[in-house]
């Protein structure tokens, strides 16, 4: 039965949008003094738009401070957007009151980077995993223990871990708990914010494989936020690249990695060391640092470090426009 229904689901997933983000913007105020006088803003995220279809994995990459995590958190409204629209399953969620929003959160969950910091050290694994279900009143009839054990099994842990405390587990096991917590309320969308960057290399691949398996099994959609391009390339269907609060490129993964259009994406890809000693290549080494988001450069925000910079780039901000089959880039160059 399950196999029969698979192709149908796939067909459906191609059309069904689960998340639409339009012109999402976040300005963090900078305040000064006792009265909290506002003296400036941090332009953390600026006019970011993208869609995610059901069953898809969208990777969001960029360096620290580019706004990728802020974007992820705004989608769950853990951070309130300054402006822009977030539509989840066709419903605008920007103005939902906290009660309605809480109900919606069981559809959209987040997995954090640091599994130790995001688990309460005084709770057992069993309580940690059961907590979201209690909050959302899910499966009230069945005994919690049974569901928790099933979830533990789904994320590759033993049922007797139910009585352990987070400190007794390794980093990889803790991240599995974080994933089980997110899964427990049967969400549609999971925002995974750097879920593997705190883990060791040999553990990282275990968690990546687990995330892929769970996506199949529970029909999940991922927004996968990471700074590691190789991980994103492995797990994503489409990839968005952010720089200093802007989405500079968005494309299906095969196109993005084969023919990166934006000079920043090109530099980012070329800067990554390849684990194969023969493959010495000419790195594009970007000069200088990422500019301060309090006072971002005029025009294209990348123009201060771009090797193709023209006069136009300093004045006019490039729009994200389509190049070839759903490959978008925000650059004046063709």
């Amino acid at each position, binding site marked *: 039965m399950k196999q029969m229904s698979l192709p149908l689901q796939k067909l459906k997933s191609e059309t069904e949008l689960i998340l639409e983000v339009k012109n999402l913007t976040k300005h963090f105020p900078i305040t000064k003094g006792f009265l909290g006088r506002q003296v400036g803003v941090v332009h953390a995220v600026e006019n970011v738009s993208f869609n995610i279809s059901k069953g898809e994995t969208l990777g969001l990459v960029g360096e620290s401070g580019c706004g990728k995590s802020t974007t992820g958190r705004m989608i769950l409204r853990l951070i309130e957007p300054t402006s822009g629209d977030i539509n989840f399953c066709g419903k605008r969620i920007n103005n939902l009151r906290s009660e309605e929003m809480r109900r919606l959160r069981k559809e959209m969950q987040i997995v954090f980077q640091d599994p130790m910091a995001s688990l309460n050290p005084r709770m057992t694994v069993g309580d940690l995993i059961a907590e979201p279900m209690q909050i959302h009143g899910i499966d009230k009839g069945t005994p919690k223990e049974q569901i928790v054990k099933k979830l533990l099994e789904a994320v590759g842990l033993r049922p007797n871990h139910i009585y352990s405390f987070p400190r007794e587990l390794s980093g990889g096991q803790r991240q599995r708990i974080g994933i089980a917590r997110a899964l427990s309320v049967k969400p549609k969308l999971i925002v995974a914010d750097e879920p593997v960057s705190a883990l060791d290399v*040999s553990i990282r691949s*275990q968690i990546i494989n687990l995330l892929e398996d769970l996506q199949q099994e529970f029909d999940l959609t991922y927004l996968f936020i990471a700074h590691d391009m190789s991980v994103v390339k492995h797990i994503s269907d489409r990839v968005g690249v952010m720089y200093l609060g802007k989405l500079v490129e968005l494309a299906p993964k095969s196109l993005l990695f084969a023919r990166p259009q934006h000079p920043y994406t090109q530099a980012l890809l070329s800067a990554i060391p390849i684990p194969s*000693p023969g493959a*010495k290549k000419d790195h594009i080494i970007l000069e200088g*640092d990422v500019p301060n988001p309090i006072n971002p450069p005029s025009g294209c925000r990348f123009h201060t470090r771009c090797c193709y910079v023209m006069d136009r780039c300093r004045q006019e901000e490039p729009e994200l426009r389509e190049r070839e089959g759903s490959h978008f880039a925000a650059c004046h160059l063709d």
Partner: protein
Amino acid sequence: MKQPHDILEHVTPLLSVKNLKTYFRSEEGGVIKAVDGASLHIRPKEILGIVGESGSGKSITAMSILRLIPSPPGYFAGGDIVFENESLLAKTQKEMRLIRGKDISMVFQEPMSSLNPAYTVGYQIMENIMLHQKVSKNQALEHAVDMLKLVGIPSPEKRVHDYPFQMSGGMRQRVMVAMALSCQPKLLIADEPTTALDVTIQAQILRLILDTKDKVGSAIMLITHDLGVVAEVCQRVVVMYAGKVVEVAYVNELFNHPAHPYTEGLLSAIPRLDETRDRLTIVPGSIPNPARMPEGCRFHPRCQYADERCRTEQPPLVSPKPGQWVSCWRASGVEGSEADVAATAEA
């Protein structure tokens, strides 16, 4: 049996670590064997990579070389560290102070926590220069400005008076490199120098370390967990696992023909930009608890080839061919191993 520190047929090593054992007393009264019989060497002007995951003992090895292990709880339970024919473990702290920063210097992972926030970066570079060289304050300042110029900091005469908080992460790491190289050390130990940095800044710093190495002529011991960095930068690689050296090889050999199952597992577990993998192969299980190391080969609980012998007996570090050292019962050269057969079959 030949030991790894004897294999230098042609060049005398600059530094040899011989069967080093750095242990820590735990609060519960047990002993944590953070480094348990590690041997490696580095030749003049060589770039040696040390790779391993957290808890493999790679940083403790580096700290042991500089005698930076806090004691108690840490202590040396055996082995020796020989730098230019002198034992570093026999030196007093006073003698070590003259070596640190001059002959051997170190760049740490976190540039913010290893710079003093209360002093200008210029002062901190000058401090090292004036400690080791007989120069006036003005000469030292001049030298500090030169070093900042060397590491590519724009308008160094101005930035020399900056405090660390006025600089970005990449700039701070440049300052650390300038400080470490200011007395032209024979050995630079870089412990995860780019891990805290973004990938575009990482490329800048790696390029910088390589360029300045050529100018200064130091050997570099690069400690990292990033196999990509190793492949691009290093000439030879030491792989550590759970406090032991499990494999030593030239970089091409290591990546093309890994001899130890752990190295093999690591290489196949990483997602890669240069090829597409449908599914990542995994190294099952996790790193052992250092207070309760497994019997026999420490990798055996995670090893797909493990047999009875691996569970009970520790494999020695042997050399199946020149330049390569491996600690595994399957490696050729170890009596009773089947590796020879497997190697012929593969060829």
